[in-house]
């Protein structure tokens, strides 16, 4: 303590001596702040016992320094590039290419009709089929998507939320056909409906039945897919929608608590499902703030699970997370500059101890990535992993005066938000009242104003501009695809055993009416007889109603 006091008075002396220099050379900004408006001091000094409990050791509660005892010294993070466009066959080709290039996990992007539970021939799907991801109508498409990809060896992450149960069941069914029992399947479904209401928009049903489907999945997977991550609680889209780093962490953790509450309420023991909860964060440009955000999130979650939910299994305390670099930070102007942004963001995720990482492609502000851009993005991770040496020691920024203080500060600010959300009545209530939506929108507007007033410099956008022809080689989705997909679903409807489909959908309808029924086995039955995603989701639309937005 005396030592600390000494430090502080020395710092004061130093600050006084600096005043003179500042008058001659004024600082570039007054004050300097992070994205979350945390004021950044001129200099940080040791302000606490660096051996303290808060920091701890890797693999030990509260996991500030990482969830594994050895981190990347034993195994590098999983390099998982999100891909999917057009037809199942085309996407399958891209997947096999990425696996050949050394990627270690798959990540499937679905088109919007699939994500909202519409068939490709639904009137709502017009113009959207195969555009932002692969179109999946029936098990037939899923079989083509995963053709010759061994599901016992490759882990697959699926960005699917409202109809997550349907896609998960299709995945189980393809596994069965390959002779891989469901116990051996590994991967993740996003399955995070709350952030859809807040930020991403692919909801179908109102919150209550949606939460039921999610807990049904928790329960089913605990018994049948013990190695599958049942949810990826996502801050990514909250950040893309315009939140700052603190809001991203706070709203994500608040949503996580809502899922835990719902599962406990449905009768599950916290330690039976909590180890399979995974998280998904964004990495933006403010490097140290991002690193601190990851470290703080880990510590907050550990404390909540241990103290608030009384989880006994240390696996329940660990916040495991995937990271994707920030799509909204990329510029359409001088797109090659995006490679540099992505590198910086990816580095922050690695310094923050991520379990898996997607690096964005340079051309994403313009269109879906080309094969070359996707390769550069993957190579960026491979260079970080193999050439930079950053993966050779654990939590290399731990003990940095700045990073530790920022970590503490973010923890405090996130906890303030969590208190406010608890006062509102929890995340579900806060979403229904639009609390998070308003906070994010306000921040997004401030960001835009800052850029237009040139208070925030975005290289190539509002400063360091060049005259350029923005006309790179872009990936185009074939316009014929929509028609082909419609032809395919038409012929499947004709060829399948319609009696079996009717039976399966009838059983699903009956059990949807019974709140105590777990719907997953009935969805699996329907999927196996080639019921379409639209048919299955419409049964539940009839029973559950649709969310109308606020």
């Amino acid at each position: 303590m005396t030592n600390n006091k000494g430090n502080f008075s020395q710092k004061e002396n130093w600050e006084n001596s600096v005043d003179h220099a500042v008058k001659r050379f004024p600082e570039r900004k007054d004050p300097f702040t992070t994205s979350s408006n945390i004021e950044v001091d001129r200099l940080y000094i040791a302000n606490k016992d660096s051996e303290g409990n808060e920091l701890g050791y890797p693999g030990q509660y509260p996991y500030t320094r990482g969830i594994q005892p050895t981190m990347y010294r034993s195994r590098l993070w999983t390099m998982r590039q999100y891909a999917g466009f057009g037809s199942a066959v085309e996407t399958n080709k891209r997947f096999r290419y990425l696996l050949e290039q050394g990627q270690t996990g798959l990540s499937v992007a679905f088109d919007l009709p699939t994500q909202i539970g519409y068939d490709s021939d639904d009137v709502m799907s017009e113009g959207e089929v195969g555009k932002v991801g692969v179109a999946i109508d029936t098990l037939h498409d899923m079989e083509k998507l995963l053709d010759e990809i061994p599901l016992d060896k490759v882990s697959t992450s699926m960005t699917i939320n409202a109809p997550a149960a349907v896609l998960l069941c299709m995945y189980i069914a393809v596994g069965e056909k390959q002779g891989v029992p469901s116990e051996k399947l590994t991967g993740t479904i996003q399955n995070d409906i709350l952030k859809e209401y807040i930020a991403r928009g692919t909801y179908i049903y109102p919150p209550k039945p949606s939460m039921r489907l999610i807990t049904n999945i928790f329960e089913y997977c605990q018994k049948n897919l013990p190695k599958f991550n049942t949810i990826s609680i996502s801050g990514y889209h909250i950040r893309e929608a315009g939140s700052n780093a603190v809001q991203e962490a706070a709203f994500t953790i608040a949503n996580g608590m809502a899922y835990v509450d719902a599962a406990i309420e449905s009768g599950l023991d916290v330690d039976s499902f909590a180890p399979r909860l995974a998280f998904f964060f964004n990495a933006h440009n403010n490097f140290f703030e991002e690193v601190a955000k990851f470290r703080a999130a880990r510590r907050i979650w550990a404390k909540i699970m241990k103290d608030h939910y009384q989880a006994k299994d240390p696996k329940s305390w660990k916040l495991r997370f995937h990271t994707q670099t920030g799509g909204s930070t990329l510029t359409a102007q001088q797109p090659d500059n995006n490679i540099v942004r992505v590198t910086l963001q990816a580095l922050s995720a690695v310094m923050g101890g991520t379990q898996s990482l997607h690096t964005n492609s340079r051309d994403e502000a313009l269109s879906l990535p080309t094969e070359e851009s996707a390769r550069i993005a993957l190579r960026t991770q491979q260079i970080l992993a193999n050439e930079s040496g950053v993966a050779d020691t654990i939590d290399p920024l731990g003990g940095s005066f700045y990073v530790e203080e920022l970590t503490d500060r973010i923890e405090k600010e996130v906890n303030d938000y969590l208190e406010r959300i608890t006062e509102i009545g929890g995340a579900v209530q806060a979403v229904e009242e639009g609390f998070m939506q308003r906070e994010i929108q306000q921040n997004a507007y401030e960001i835009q104003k800052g850029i237009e007033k040139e208070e925030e410099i975005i290289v190539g956008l509002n400063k360091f501009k060049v005259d350029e022809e923005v006309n790179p080689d872009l990936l185009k989705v074939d316009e014929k695809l929509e028609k082909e997909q419609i032809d395919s679903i038409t012929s499947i409807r004709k060829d399948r055993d319609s009696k079996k489909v009717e039976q399966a959908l009838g059983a699903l309808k009956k059990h949807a009416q019974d709140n105590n029924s777990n719907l997953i086995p009935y969805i699996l039955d329907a999927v196996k007889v080639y019921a379409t995603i639209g048919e299955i989701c419409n049964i539940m639309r009839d029973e559950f109603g649709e969310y109308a937005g606020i």
Partner: protein
Amino acid sequence: MGKIRVLVAKPGLDGHDRGALVISQALRDHGMEVIYTGLRQSPVQIAQAAIQEDVDVIGLSSLSGAHKTLFPKVIEELIKRNAEDIPVVGGGVIPSEDIPFLLEKGVKKIFTSGASTEALANYIQELIQPGEVTEIKPKKIAHIGIAVKSLDQALTFYTDLLGLELEGVEKVESEGVKVAFLKIGESRIELLEGLNESSPIQSFIEKKGEGIHHIALEVDDIESRLKKLKTEGIQLINNEAKQGAHNSQIAFIHPKAANGVLVELCQHDEGSED
């Protein structure tokens, strides 16, 4: 004139509405009334909403790649309802090569990634209430600027040999130049000599040698012109008018925007001329 009413709409299934929401708020801050439809609107719903709400303009936003199908559909639905007089503008993730197609289908303008809300607001203002910014044609060529190494030497030629009338010589310290004005008809020739190394005239001569440096147009409405040029994305050297010689307000447009010619806009205060 009443407030401009804008319908901001998200056609199709795309859920990315950060841009739509930011724009809605920005347009409100510019004094417009904005109705935001929310997500997942069909072209029919959008056309109906535009008519019901009696809006002056529709802004469509799409980031999912469905713009080529959905934007023209909105216009078709407006035509079916005899409401094609409501202009439609669009934005989002839209590749530049798709823009001609969309314009041909009747979309008035596409604002892509990186466009400022200011530019959008000015564009809509100009589109709906053009009377607010009265457009008067430039009156004349105010002067032609010629960069010279030495005013004294150059004046010998222009006055003694060509016989032009020397009106006066003025130092404009802020620009680092000394200027001589020679009257010819209702215009002038302006000879410019750099005062020091850092003067733009000096660097012009170093790069290109002596010669015509700029052409100045006399205008009445320099501020609103600059605003309009900015809206159109024209690169300006001066975003706002500044003090020039002879009590004038001046601003330069970048030569890149004017086919290699440095264009000056200048406005003289009432009664200050001659």
